[in-house]
């Protein structure tokens, strides 16, 4: 129990796991993580982030489930399942890309700054 908080701290720094979770005694150490997600489509080898289309309900629900897990597990949880569902839902695309954005409180500027990670899933 004495060692676990050290591991939890390391995990929150390297994998962006949620310090508020997993019994590391780190609640109220940083603002609760804010995780957002965007999905793009690949056409002609380029990612189009701006294309809007109606998202099937199961995909939307999986998106919310992914956000919950991503908020907790950080980079340890990739959106593979979500991407698989998106590829199945939009068969005309060459692939999909998922951008995961965490808003973190920067210590120097005391402002919220984005930390992005983009996952590309070609068909």
């Amino acid at each position: 129990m004495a060692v676990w908080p050290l591991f939890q701290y390391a995990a929150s720094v390297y994998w962006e796991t949620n310090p508020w979770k997993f019994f590391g005694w780190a609640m109220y150490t940083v603002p609760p993580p804010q995780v957002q997600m965007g999905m793009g489509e690949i056409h002609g080898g380029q990612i189009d982030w701006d294309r809007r289309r109606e998202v099937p309900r199961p995909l939307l629900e999986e998106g919310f489930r992914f956000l919950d897990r991503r908020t907790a597990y950080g980079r340890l949880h990739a959106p593979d399942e979500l991407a698989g569902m998106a590829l199945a839902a939009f068969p005309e695309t060459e692939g999909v890309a998922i951008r995961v954005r965490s808003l973190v409180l920067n210590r120097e500027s005391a402002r919220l700054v984005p930390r992005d990670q983009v996952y590309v899933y070609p068909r």
Partner: protein
Amino acid sequence: MGMSASTIALEPGPRLREPPPLPGALAGPGPNAGAALLHEKFTAFSRTFAVIVACELWSEVARVEGMLRGTRFAVAVLFTAAAAAIAMGRWARPAAAFASALLAVRLACFLPLSANHYYLEVIYAFFLAIPAADPREEDLVLKAVRSTVIVGLIASGIQKAAHGCYFGGEFLCFMLAHDPRFDVLSPLVPAPEVLRLHALEKGIGAGPYRVDSVPLLIVSNLTYVLEVLLPIGLLVPRLRRVALAAAVAFVVAIEVAARELFFGALMINSLLVFSRGGLHRKAMPLLAAFCIYLLAVSLGLLPRWRFS
């Protein structure tokens, strides 16, 4: 006719035999008094723990809609039965083992969103499953609880310093801006700055979450400093009484903002294990009454107020 030395050693004469143990209330100074106090403290801890968790579980059933409500209800019913056994001291050990397994199921059901004190409750119930009739084993459990409190407080303080959002009060400013629970900090911050923080919207570049307020800076920095110093005070016998009073006051102060009141009760019950004399026994009805009050509020039987 001569007896061997080993026979003599195995059958001590009347003068070597220890007197039978006295009931706790009658025990004066001496080894029995120590054992009685130990047992009293162990009983106070375990009974209070059982009441806190039972009230918390029923409170969750009352408050939470939808998400695994049936599971919460089943856990609350079964835990209440186990808590009754723990509180009455009958089948307490197997009941605590069952309670620990039950709380572990509840923790697993809500992963990864399980609250941190779910883990603490599983561990405490597991600790309570250890002791048998031997007072030394009860002492071991109380030492384990004390160690958990020490580790928890120090780890919490070090992590606050390591993440670095307390030196300039950034974390508290963020919470003051976006979490109404932290409005209690408003008097520490100049009014225009409070208005500015409240007007901030979470988004890229939002901030700065920093204000020109010495009182807020003091509170912010005192938080992690106390979380490291108080456990050290609890470890030093001469400082223990003062450190205990300060630690309880500290938990109360935190809960004024955080309002995770069952967790606060759990922490105070853990801290009281450091107390001497019958303080833990005396505090037990207060903590139990507080948790029953919180449950009554959750059930809508009593009016809600700011800190409930």
